[in-house]
């Protein structure tokens, strides 16, 4: 065993000494290789963290949302609808929601207005402070998301005026700002009470924007939704797992776009690496001849080259991965944020908790380290099986 290690160390010594002879060229290759891993790993880590965050947060969203469709478009839920839903077996906690959009010409951004309907929706209500927070704002008061507050430059206690769609001017006192670390879901929210909401939007009495409900037996969500769709043919039930799947696919898609853009760079590197690794110079061929003549076995030559490929690709992979981690989670992915995050006038500020997907990292490892190691090996194989007497004749 010791002897084996000693042999491998000698082979590593030799391969490193050979690499050191063309320092700039090999260092350049290592750098480009590490850079490529860095870019790929950045995209992967960012997308995986965002996906994870979305899944965690949206796990608490309503189990089923029921929309009413008119001519294929989302429409108001008329009076009596909620009662009809209540008659379906298995349905619990039916609540109408009131929400809509308001375009604020001052900052050219869209806000999401939402009326806080009493009755808390889930187990979170049991936590201290939760009930106060979920209590509807008093008349003439609003609670705003911290993204909005930042963008409009307002704070708790200020008065905000909006011109409603009916043309009337409404002034609201800001009673509070939602926690800044929840901006990912609340950046553009304006919370009002029900009466203010209906007055501001001229919302027809007893109508709702949509209806949320939960199902007694979580395994029957799909069956219940099916029953709802049958009983109310103009409704469209949306399930929680569909919501979360939507977000999964959005980030998959954005990641995919990024990777597609990068694929050209990947190909370019593949060509470069292939050329560098597989193009055996006359000098190297001669050296292999010398090594074989002075007593190296073909296997030794191949092992030596394998070490070269492994050392280069492994250090490039590790360096690239570590740099990507630091970039995404300690420098907020400054380099790729525009492409990965997308764009909006009112964009939430948020930090991401790392959610390292082991499978993805492993995949990246195998797709970078192995091909390079093999690219190094292929030509050596051909060169190493030549007769050692070539050196004498040459």
């Amino acid at each position, binding site marked *: 065993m010791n002897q084996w290690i000693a042999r491998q160390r000698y082979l*590593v*010594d030799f391969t*490193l000494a050979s690499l050191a002879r063309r320092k700039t060229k090999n260092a350049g290759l290592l750098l480009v290789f590490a850079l490529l891993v860095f870019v790929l790993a950045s995209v992967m880590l960012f997308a995986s963290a965002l996906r994870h*965050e979305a899944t*965690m*947060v*949206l796990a*608490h*969203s*309503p189990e089923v*949302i029921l*929309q009413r*469709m008119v001519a*294929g*478009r*989302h429409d108001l839920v008329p009076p009596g609808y909620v009662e009809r839903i209540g008659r379906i077996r298995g349905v619990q906690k039916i609540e109408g929601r009131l929400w809509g*959009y308001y375009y604020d010409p001052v900052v050219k*951004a*869209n*806000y*999401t207005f*939402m009326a806080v309907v009493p009755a*808390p*929706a889930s187990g979170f*209500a049991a*936590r201290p402070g*939760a009930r106060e*927070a979920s209590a509807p704002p008093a008349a003439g008061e609003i609670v705003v998301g911290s993204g909005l507050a930042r963008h409009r430059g307002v704070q708790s206690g200020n008065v905000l005026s909006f011109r409603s769609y009916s043309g009337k001017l409404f002034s609201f006192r800001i009673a509070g700002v*939602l926690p800044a*670390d929840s901006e*990912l*879901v*609340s950046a*553009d*929210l304006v919370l009002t009470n029900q009466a203010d909401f209906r007055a501001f939007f001229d919302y027809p009495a007893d109508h709702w924007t949509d209806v949320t409900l939960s199902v007694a037996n979580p395994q029957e969500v799909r069956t219940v*939704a099916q029953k709802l*769709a*049958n009983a109310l*043919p103009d409704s469209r*039930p*949306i399930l929680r797992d*569909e*919501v979360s799947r939507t*977000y999964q*696919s959005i980030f998959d898609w954005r990641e995919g*776009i990024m990777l597609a853009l990068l694929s050209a760079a990947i190909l370019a590197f593949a060509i470069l690496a292939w050329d560098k690794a597989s193009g055996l110079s006359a000098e190297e061929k001669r050296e292999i001849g010398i090594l074989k003549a002075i007593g190296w076995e073909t296997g030794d030559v191949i092992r030596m080259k394998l070490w070269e490929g492994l050392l280069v690709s492994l*250090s490039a992979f*590790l360096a690239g991965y*570590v740099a990507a*981690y630091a970039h995404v*989670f300690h420098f907020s992915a400054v380099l790729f944020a525009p492409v990965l995050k*997308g*764009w*909006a006038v009112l964009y*939430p500020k*948020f930090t991401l*908790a*790392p*959610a*390292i997907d082991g499978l993805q990292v492993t995949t990246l490892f195998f797709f970078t380290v192995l091909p390079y190691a093999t690219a190094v090996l292929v030509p050596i194989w051909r060169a190493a099986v030549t007769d050692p007497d070539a050196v004498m004749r040459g």
Partner: protein
Amino acid sequence: MKVRPSSLAAGVLAALGCVAAATFLDAARLQRTHAVATEHAAMLVAQFGLTDLALFTEARYTRHRAVADLHSAFQDHPFGLEHFPSGSLLPPPVHLTQARHEPVDRQTALSR
């Protein structure tokens, strides 16, 4: 005596490996510190029955994509470009269009 290149390489690789392993520890640490923020967001989601991330506020099909009308791109904001996977060059993956995942709407309900 000079340091052997193999010792140098082993040192560098070991150091890189340690740093790479440290990213996992750091990830666990960041996750713990981030738990409060996730909790806040999750609480809001639960209290107000929120369904979407406030990432793209320009159009309703991007702000509330989970509850947007079906097939509704290019509606609201002139810069609200197509964000749906169907707008890309490839069709959505098969597993999304298979029966198990088909949306529970009127059409599927009637076909039973």
